[in-house]
């Protein structure tokens, strides 16, 4: 399968990865466009399908990180996400969505904004893109054990942010 086909086949996965990095839809689409161009140009050497996907994800992650650094990351206003969340909540029948409070969303938004990207990226890849530690490690050039340590650290930071705010669970 050509790398272009791998891109098309896994576009939803790539999109989720970009979404979880906190970029707006417009910024994210620009990034996917760049990843697509890289896919058309092709990787430096021939890659099998699995390797090609990892390569594309790596390109997407690096492109997102570049965007973060250029735009001082997470430039979307928390109020915008909150407004969208309120709208989503109104229309959603998903019980988890109904049970969540605005102060929890605010606390997690702030925590994500302040979190180091070395923790945030693995978190997004593990919990939003459903990649395991080995897959994440292959994309980020990390040992699976190092990925797990970052995941633990990120999860604890998020949990402690809720406890620090004194939000009743």
């Amino acid at each position, binding site marked *: 399968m050509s790398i272009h086909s791998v891109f098309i086949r896994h576009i939803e996965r790539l999109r989720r990865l970009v979404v979880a990095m906190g970029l707006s839809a417009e910024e994210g689409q620009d990034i996917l466009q760049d990843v697509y161009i890289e896919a058309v140009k092709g990787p430096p050497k021939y890659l099998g399908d699995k390797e090609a996907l990892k390569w594309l994800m790596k390109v997407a992650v690096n492109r997102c990180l570049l965007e973060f650094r250029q735009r001082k990351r997470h430039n979307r206003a928390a109020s915008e996400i909150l407004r969208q969340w309120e709208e989503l909540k109104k229309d959603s029948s998903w019980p988890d969505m109904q049970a969540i409070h605005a102060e929890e969303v605010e606390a997690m938004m702030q*925590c*994500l904004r302040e979190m180091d990207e070395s923790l945030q990226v693995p978190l997004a890849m593990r919990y939003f893109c459903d990649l395991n530690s080995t897959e994440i490690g292959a994309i980020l050039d990390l040992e699976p054990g190092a990925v797990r340590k970052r995941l633990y650290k990120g999860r604890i930071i998020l949990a402690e942010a809720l406890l620090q705010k004194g939000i009743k*669970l």
Partner: protein
Amino acid sequence: MKEDTCQIVSKEELVAYADGELSPSVAGRIAKHVAKCPNCRSMAEALQRSLQVTEVIWQTSESQWPKTRLLERFQSSKWSLRKIAAVAASILLVLGVGAVWRMLSRPTERTGISREQALAVEIKRKISESSDAARLLAAAELLSKYPEAENSVKERYQHIVETYPETTAAAEARQKIQ
């Protein structure tokens, strides 16, 4: 913040417990401890809750994406390259056939269109239609490999059937729709 003074279960173990990554025996041991230890219980709850809220934030961001248009955007850019190549090939073919035909069947009268000229135009049209329909069919078949593009593929087959009904490609598209 509550102090984590528990010496029995580490935070890392609590994360693994919250994520269901422990063996049943270890998970059972931690579950018993969590039931008794208020610090570990609130940390375990916070671990679950914070992830739940974070997922909602990601999903909220995701909901702002024009999901269906995304795939089309990239497929259409590939399509453009194919289209340009196919159209260029069709034009060359038609021009070539036209030139040969003109050489073989010059009109006897300076005014009006000869029967041969009319026939040449008709042949050109049929070649062009067949070429366009075949090109569209090939593109639709390429797209049909991707489940996300199912609706787009159906629309393309329908378009072929309606626009080029007399072509072989339309016959094939009809079968695909059925």
